[in-house]
């Protein structure tokens, strides 16, 4: 159907008022040879029922996939609030007098994220965890003039790829990787120590739990980083914050990553919810929107976007980032999710994820199937799965994690298995059956 509101009569009335006879007269400034003389080759119009049946796909029965994008239970409240059209169909809150709803939601999100991370400030969100990490690298280069970016090799490979894409054209910058210990799956502390000693003007980033699901030895990392110019922690499974020490306690300059797990479905790969938290000293160098408290003309408290002078619409080529949006709806979902599950709910969900992973690990252990790494895990771990098992899984409608040997050729046949509260003991037994 068409969403044009005018009927034929109204259109003709407007033609008459403009003194034209047809729509062609409206496009006279376009050189004639560029005017398309045929209809676009696009099928339709279709009715709603047809569209619904054309545009759908069903998930597999049992899914153990994660690796940066997670399936978690979403309380009904989240969908109810997120579908309020006052949020859904509003624009960026540039006009604060008629955007207090969106502005306060962002302020509350900023408040909740900083408390979860134990950091001073959070921006209004970014596209995803990978671009948030790339922006953190750019901030380190801007604020601390670092000349080398060190990435732990167990940071999500997609994140590392995005960082390289973003940093490619910066002259004189090196991007290097710090290897992981092939037994524990944790960062190789000796190499890290040497690398940071060798070049003081480096920024180091580590993910914990890392891409293999392993919890990094953060106390040791933090002590090596004491004299570093800049370092950051990446969190891709935000649910882990329900049970683990807040990353800010280790003293990093930034904590970045993805909060899709907070009330946002995986949606076949996005939208995700990049978060960016940092210390107060970086407020003026940080990328992205910020909402601040203020007051109106009558002295009443209100919110507005602030520090816009860092942003592209004012600073243009000198802006701290080219970003011109935030993940507004995803922020809303995260804020409503965190308010709904509350402190004990988030703890319980995190415990369920950890318990589920341990339940499956125990089943595998009984079968004599060991994991690839020995380090402690939260809710993900790496297993070797042969082609035969993969084939059986696919036929049984089971997704046995995601394949990672493409990114780590040394880990032949390795599969990253993720367990969340969306799985069950029965799911785990099914997975065991195909092994």
């Amino acid at each position, binding site marked *: 159907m068409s969403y044009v509101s005018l009927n034929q009569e109204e259109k003709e009335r407007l*033609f008459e008022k403009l003194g034209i006879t047809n729509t062609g007269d409206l*496009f006279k400034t376009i050189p004639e040879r*560029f005017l398309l003389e045929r209809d676009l080759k696009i099928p339709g119009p279709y009715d709603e029922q047809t569209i619904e049946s054309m*545009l759908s796909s069903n998930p597999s029965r049992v899914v153990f996939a994660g690796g940066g994008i997670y399936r978690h239970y979403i*309380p009904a409240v989240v969908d109810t609030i997120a579908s309020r059209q006052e949020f859904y169909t509003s624009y960026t809150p540039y006009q604060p007098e008629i955007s207090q709803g969106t502005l*306060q939601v962002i302020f509350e999100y900023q408040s909740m994220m900083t408390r*979860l991370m134990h950091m001073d400030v959070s921006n209004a969100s970014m596209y995803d965890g990978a671009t948030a990490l790339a922006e953190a690298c750019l901030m380190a280069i801007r604020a601390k003039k670092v000349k080398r970016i060190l990435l732990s090799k167990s940071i999500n490979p997609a994140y590392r790829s995005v960082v390289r894409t973003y940093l490619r*054209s910066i002259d004189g910058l090196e991007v290097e990787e710090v290897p992981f210990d092939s037994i524990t799956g944790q960062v190789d502390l000796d190499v890290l120590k040497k690398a940071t000693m060798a070049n003081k003007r480096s920024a180091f980033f580590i993910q914990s739990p890392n891409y293999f699901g392993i919890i990094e030895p953060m106390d040791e990392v933090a002590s090596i980083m004491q004299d570093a110019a800049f370092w950051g922690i990446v969190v891709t499974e935000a649910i882990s914050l329900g049970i683990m020490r807040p990353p800010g306690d280790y003293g990093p300059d930034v904590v970045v990553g993805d909060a899709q797990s907070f009330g946002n479905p995986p949606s076949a790969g996005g939208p995700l919810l990049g978060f960016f938290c940092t210390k107060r000293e970086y407020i003026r160098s940080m990328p992205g929107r910020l909402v601040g408290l203020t007051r109106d003309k009558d002295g009443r408290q209100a919110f*507005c976007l602030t520090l816009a002078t860092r942003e592209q619409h004012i600073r243009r080529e000198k802006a701290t980032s080219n970003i011109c949006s935030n993940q507004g709806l995803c922020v809303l979902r995260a804020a409503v999710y965190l308010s709904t599950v509350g402190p004990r709910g988030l703890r319980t969900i995190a415990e369920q994820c950890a318990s589920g992973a341990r339940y499956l690990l125990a089943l595998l252990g009984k079968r004599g199937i060991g994991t690839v790494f020995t380090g402690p895990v939260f809710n993900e771990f790496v297993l070797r799965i042969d082609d035969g098992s993969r084939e059986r899984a696919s036929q049984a409608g089971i997704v046995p994690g995601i394949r990672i040997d493409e990114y780590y050729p040394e880990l032949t046949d390795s599969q990253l298995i993720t367990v969340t509260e969306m799985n069950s003991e029965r799911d785990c037994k099914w997975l065991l059956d195909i092994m």
Partner: protein
Amino acid sequence: MVIRHNVTRSTELLEPVVYSLSDHGKNKVNPPRPFEAIELGDVDRPLVNHDLPDLPDISEVEVVRHYTRLSRLNYAIDLGMYPLGSCTMKYNPKISEKVAAKIGNIHPGDTEAMQTILGLLSNLEAHLEEICGMDACTLWPAAGAHGELTGMMIIKKAMVERGEDRREVLIPDTAHGTNPASCTIAGFKAVKVPSGDKGYLEASTLRKLINEDVAALMITNPNTLGIFEQDIAEISELLHENGSYLYMDGANMNALMGIARPGEMGVDCMHLNLHKTFASPHGGGGPGSGPVLVKDELAPYLPMPWIVKDEEERFRLLTNAPQSIGMIHSGLGNLSVLMKTLSYISSLGGKGIREAAEVSVLIANYMKKCLKDSYYLPYDTPTLHEFVLTDKYQKERGVTTMDIAKALMDFGFHPPTVYFPLVVTGAMMIEPTETEPLDEIERFIDAMKQIDELSRKDPGAFSSIPRATPVSRVDEVWAARRLVLTWDMVESIMGEPPSK
């Protein structure tokens, strides 16, 4: 130094911040517990934090009321017209939302379910290529600015592959601020190009500026004055002769879809804004989607993964294209927005898409005609889907564009884009879109005329406007000086306890 301010009750927020509703034990949520909770032993010590996460503790009914009340403080398209120039705030069809929700539970690692999705995305690529007259497409950029950056990176990569180190990207002075910002991140130097007296870039100007260091020209067409870039053919010829690329910011594609195709005008690379032209919602600031389209010559550099079909006619994601710029997103892109776009395109079909463009231009021209006697029209070149007026007449009476914008709120409208483009002093950039009912258009025109009347009769009245909004005029200076950015800062800066 800590700045302390006494805050009295009468000046409190319309709705308290969620943390101030919190009290121990109010939250009674019962999350799924499919597993028996396992006691975490010594091995798992690093996992355990003795403190619970610091979140508000409130009941479900309080959550619902709190956020529902907040929603009512927002303006939205579903409440009325949103004439923001170059933002294309058109109606967001509800079927699109329903369709997008259907793919919510699919994990991208679920290869079977993704077969169908990749097939749909491949169709969407083909539709967008057809609309733009381009050869290849990536759907992954998560917003328009992300698309621009991707496009600039593609051009940078093409230069590297050609063994050239061209540094400059020319950008007309009417461009959106993201254009120069994206150029800089991609490693180029943004060079400003003046648009002429007629409100578009003249080929003669480009001829003077072009040199062997120019990698590309980044143009918005129609530009942010709503004017079609009439010299586009000559411009693209000049660029191509010079070995430079023509990049088009597709922010204003709503005026062209089904009417004329950028690919035929010589555009080498461009991005679309699906949240503008293709009716997916803005959602209070995102998520958007900014697909990039290129000619064959630039296709090898498109970001990964690529959607390809193998010999067995199965779709897969190619992750080892040797010349690609690499990945730009850790998932795929904003898939739910892509599904909304596909739903919108399917709803309209080829003819409907053209009709949308035609009506958007028809309505905008009608509005311009009705308003140009009351407000100054800086360029009289014919415009397409949007137009720019200024406060020149009203300013003589002491009334500015900002005053006019705030006054529109009292008439129940969202203001137009203001003070942009930068080349026009006191600009008001108006884009009604094709979905507005004629009654709403007439009401807006009438409101603008009444505001002009008020500026004659009682210019002093504007200082206390808006009055009909949830809060009165908001003090951005106060916010920028104090920087109260979280609930914890409310305590440290304002001397108020942040929570019970």
